[in-house]
């Protein structure tokens, strides 16, 4: 069976220390000011966080690293702040992974070393105003013109796409029509600063205030044909392959959140007094916290089981189908548990839970997106049901 190794636990300690020292003292201000802490990214790079699943030749950790380590890092950052957790999760899962998995040697050499070192960030543009998980409805178009692709269209909610150090955004676009009439989707890399590529102003989000999210527009945006990532017409399939990792990573982020809610409520219930006693003496409070502890444990087991399966898949010992199912299951459970955890925590905190002075309020705002990003809870149920062999429409 799976378990976290001593190395994973050593690494957890360091990431926790880093998050407590480099993130915790500033996060209230970053959140309030919607500030993306760009200076933090190279520090995360020095720790090795962006290179955990990357070969050594591009500055990564090679065989020493694994996907489980990445989940540990995401959980620990997420325990202190979710915006920073998603910055890492998206930076690796959406920025680095597609290039690493489908890029040519030249593309990898050009982009990966800076991304792994935290000197640069990359975004992945799939979602559109009218197309999310239904990626086949993609409207953005790329038309071949001589030695160039001409991209036109718009993308929505793209993480890490507008930071001062964003080097490239990979976008999915229709490049033709298949025989059955469905859209042929390809992935094309658009470097920052390409004429016709506009990063729209940052979104005004409910949560994740310290993470970078923008809409993108492409108007006659020209890039060399060599910027095609992977095989022409395979963009959709390519994307689906990296989706499972992203779901497990979001699940790790949710574990960090629930863990933090457990810590916050436990300590508050011991110290806050009402009617002459700490509020934790009331079963109305203590039972909710007990439930929280169960949720944390269950989320953590499901998440690291899925991460372990993913690492085993890399070694050829497990199947894609197993990982897919485990990813959907952990993502569904952990994120819904995290939303519940923040509801419990804010309730235990009473009036203080409604005040931004207390971190539980920030986590409450940050929780909702977890049930939505990387496939909504409904999409996860769809995937799980489909894997069970239930009939589909």
């Amino acid at each position, binding site marked *: 069976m799976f378990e976290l190794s001593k*190395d994973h636990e*050593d*690494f957890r300690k*360091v990431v926790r*220390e*880093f998050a407590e020292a480099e993130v915790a003292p500033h996060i209230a201000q970053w959140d309030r000011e919607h500030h993306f802490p760009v200076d933090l990214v190279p520090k995360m790079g*020095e*720790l*090795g*966080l962006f*290179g*955990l699943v990357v070969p050594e030749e591009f500055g990564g*950790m090679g065989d*020493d*690293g694994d996907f489980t*380590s990445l989940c540990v890092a995401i959980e620990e950052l997420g325990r202190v702040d979710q915006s920073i957790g998603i910055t890492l999760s998206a930076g690796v899962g959406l920025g680095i992974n597609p290039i690493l998995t489908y890029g040519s040697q030249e593309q990898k050499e050009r982009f990966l070393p800076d991304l792994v070192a935290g000197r640069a960030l990359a975004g992945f543009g799939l979602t559109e105003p009218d197309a999310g998980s239904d990626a086949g409805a993609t409207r953005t178009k790329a038309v071949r013109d001589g030695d160039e692709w001409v991209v036109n269209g718009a993308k929505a909610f793209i993480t890490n796409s507008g930071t001062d150090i964003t080097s490239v955004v990979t976008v999915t676009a229709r490049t033709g029509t298949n025989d059955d009439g469905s859209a042929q989707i390809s992935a094309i890399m658009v470097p920052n600063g390409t004429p016709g590529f506009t990063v729209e102003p940052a979104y005004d989000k409910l949560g994740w205030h310290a993470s970078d999210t923008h809409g993108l527009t492409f108007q006659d945006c020209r890039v060399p044909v060599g910027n095609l990532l992977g095989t022409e017409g395979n963009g959709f399939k390519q994307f689906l392959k990296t989706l499972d990792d992203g779901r497990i990573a979001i699940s790790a982020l949710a574990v960090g959140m629930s863990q933090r809610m457990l810590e916050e409520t436990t300590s508050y219930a011991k110290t806050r007094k009402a009617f002459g006693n700490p509020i934790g003496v009331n079963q109305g409070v203590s039972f909710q916290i007990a439930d929280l502890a169960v949720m944390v444990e269950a989320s953590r087991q499901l998440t690291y089981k899925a991460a372990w399966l993913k690492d085993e898949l890399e070694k050829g010992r497990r199947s894609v189908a197993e990982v897919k199912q485990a990813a959907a299951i952990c993502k569904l459970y952990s994120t819904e548990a995290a939303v519940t955890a923040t509801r419990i925590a804010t309730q235990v905190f009473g009036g203080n839970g409604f005040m931004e002075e207390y971190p539980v309020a920030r986590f409450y705002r940050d929780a909702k997106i977890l049930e939505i990003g990387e496939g909504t809870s409904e999409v996860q149920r769809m995937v799980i049901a489909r894997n069970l062999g239930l009939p589909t429409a």
Partner: protein
Amino acid sequence: MNIVVCVKYVPDAQSERTFNESDNTTDRVGVDGLLSELDEYAVEEALKIVEAGEGEVTVLTVGPDQAADAVKKALQMGADKGVHVNDEAIHGSDSVATSLVLAEAIKKIGDADLVLTGMASTDGTMSVVPAMLAERLGLPQVTFASELTVDGQQVTIRRDGDAASETIVASLPALVSVTDQINEPRYPSFKGIMAAKKKPVETWGLADLGVDASQVGLDAAWTKVESFTKRPPRQQGQIVTDEGDGGTKLAEFLSAQKFI
């Protein structure tokens, strides 16, 4: 340049620190411990010196089994090898005995051009071990360095006082203690954590150092803790409602406490 950095495993100041009921010594087993934060500056400085030139950083600790964690952290940061002096008889040692054990260990490591320490431990906070150690080793002692440069056969430090800064030069080999102003210690990277697993750590007992057990431990200590009591729980503060005279009330309070 061979550098030996002395580090201490201390109870985490974030958790509840206490004494053992049985012998009134610091409880190092029942509480979470870590590499003393003030020693991280010494490790960092040693790494910077070696990275800028050449040489080897050996990290040395004296302590119980758990103290191996302090050595490990320093190796994860980038030190080359570790020495852990661990002997039941050392339990309860005062700083005089600790400096004896450290000095003998440094002699056994051999060929140290520079011995670095933190400015104090975060548990005892006495700052005396560096001086005692320099005396025992017959080295120039250059303490409280907020800046350190190694140049050929000498070391130059800046020591900041309340009113002035001193520049002190000493010939090598020397012992230098560093403050928390000297640098910003690095975090161990993932690579560092993995690399540390392969780095050599030697564990020595008193016999390996030729130190007699009677020279160390609780019985040999020059000071003794007779008793201890837990800190009383914090009392509720005094709340003053500002009815236009808040400033005056505040001044009265501070004056009564002799702050102003």
